[in-house]
């Protein structure tokens, strides 16, 4: 297995797990909205808070984590060159 394939496997694995996080977050927040609306967080009904702010902040975190992580993965790839 060559260097690029190893790198690509790492990238795909991370992309896959982040996409799964994205999908689960979105789906659960919507699908269980009625069940969650009984709980409150700082005054908001939980389901309303998640749909209005929580989900979007999680998306931002996913993108931020991805950018940070990719920088490291690419450095790893370049270092393999040197080694």
């Amino acid at each position, binding site marked *: 297995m060559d260097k690029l394939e190893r790198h690509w496997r790492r990238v795909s694995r991370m992309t896959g797990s982040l996409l799964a996080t994205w999908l689960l977050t979105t789906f659960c927040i*919507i699908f269980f909205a009625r069940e969650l609306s009984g709980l409150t967080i*700082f005054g908001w009904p939980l*389901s309303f808070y998640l749909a209005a702010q929580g989900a*979007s902040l999680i998306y931002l975190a996913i993108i931020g984590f991805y*950018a940070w992580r990719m920088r490291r993965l690419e450095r790893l790839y370049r270092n393999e060159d040197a080694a």
Partner: protein
Amino acid sequence: MRTPFFRKLQRYYTIFASCFAMFLLALAMLEKEGMPRLWIGYLFMFATIILYAAIGVISRTSNVAEYYVAGRRVPSLFNGMATAADWISAASFISLAGGLYLHGFDGLAYIMGWTGGYCLVALLIGPYLRKFGQYTIPDFFAARYGGGFNGRAVRLMAVGATIVVSFTYVVAQIYAVGLIASRFTGVDFSVGIFLGLASILVCSFLGGMRAITWTQVAQYIIILVAFLMPAMWLAVKHGGNPVPQVAYGKLLPKLSARETQLAQDEKESEVREVFLQRAEDFDVRLHGLPASWDSGRLEAQHNLDMVKQRNGSLLEIRAAERALADYPKTVEDAAAVWAAQRNYNLARGRELVKHAEPFPGANREQSDQKRNNFLALVFCLMVGTAALPHILMRSYTTPSVQETRVSVFWTLFFILLVYLTIPALAVLVKYDIYSSLVGSDFAHLPTWVSYWANVDKANPLLSISDVNLDGIVQLAEIQIDSDVLVLATPEIAGLPYVVSGLVAAGGLAAALSTADGLLLAISNALSHDVYYKLVDPQASTQKRVTISKLLLLAVAFIAAYAASTKPGDILSLVGAAFSLAASTLFPALVAGVFWQRANHQGAMAAMVAGFFTCLYYMLHANPVLGGSISGQWFGIAANSAGVFGVPAGLAALVLVSLLTPAPDARTLSLVRHIRTPE
């Protein structure tokens, strides 16, 4: 990161922001000195339009790389701001908060959908497009899925999809420009359109992507200030906290208590009864057709005669004459008009729905139906976001692949500054109206009510009438259009008129920035992909840029003409653009990077299958397009056709690719290249 170029930009925009703040202060002082409102409107309109034009003139260019991709040197932070301005359209700025006010929890689908799509852009598409490093989205399709004739067929299909999607969208933006300009300066609607068009043109015509990028950064600053200022004011007023995103948490329980109180109010149910009674009357007349049409007309004629006989006042005679003149001309007309009236009155008579309650419905099935539609809409908006050409195009403008990734982060960050405020604003305004307007005296209505009620006589944006004649405003007597809420917020909050002008300027900036990006996406697709790549590959760079500018002019005028005819149908189809983009472009875009085996035939099949599935469903289930509600599958609304289009496209891609030969070595090496880090 902190290159000299970055520092220079930082300095320029800091100077710009402080000049803008001084401009606002100066206007506020002038208003205190008694400057008329109309002048404030004029000053805002022209100052901002001149500003955008000036940036366009300063960044004029004829260099191909500068014109198409801003020289690929836009730092991620600024690219994020520009993309955010590109993204925040007239609809998000003007109508979204109003939509949330009207629909409560159900409106949040737009907030989730329009932010979640950026995960797909960041993870699956943006960075890889930057690594590919050409100019347009069809470029990527042609190189990756090539096939015979140098990828002509694939390229043309991608161009077609780009144009269909972007054009409906740009017409809506230009329409909004005309609306805002005419509301705030009193000029005619079409004059407003062409004023806005002038600034779009000076900017993108002279400098292409380079000019619009730097204009969009300035526009973003205006959008942000314009949106936050009234929201912060209201947050301090009702929540005692200047951060609206935090303050409205405390307000929601209070709003909910007020809603419970209003739901049990006897006067409220009295008003609703009146509306339901009216709906009932129309229903009876509908069932009595065609006999009821005859008797109704005779009655109207009889009324007029009676008034004339007993020497009624001129006003009474006028009213009776108008009733007769407006009476439906044929039985078919009567059926349509009365059905619309019945539905309108039924809607007005509906029970109050709690703002924070998810999927309100009479029973579990209805509620489940709403949840499924919410899911479908979120899916379409997300996938559509990741396939809109004018947003993806921006991935090409950063200096490196890593900068593209960071730039998507900044994009979502800057979008969220506005998008997290939208639900807050809706709640704040709702609380204000529920607690101070409702229950007040009809004799002492605030001035903003009469102002906005009179803006558009034919299609009132706001109407309050004393339905049960008790002299007190009931909630059910108020009707608000979703377009008016943001524009009226400064007045509702009791802010000076300068802030209203600022909000209008913000709405204008949102519409103009999006229109800029869309027009460029269309004209680049035509000039770069059709003219340069297919018609005349030997064209000199000078000629290519000139052709592109001419096409931009032509497209802009066609779009402005389309908008000036006030096409209600096109406007209702903007939501559909997301489904079309998602179904047509998304499967082939993602497979292009992540599935080596995807080939020419597969991509063609995916685009055709996705597009036609989506189109078929819309025609089948959208009453505006000649379908019917009963044609819906699983009760999914027509605008969410992408729910069927995307899987159809993906299935076609996989099946056809596997049945036809694998892509050649050249394509495989391209995929390898795209996946390789820089």
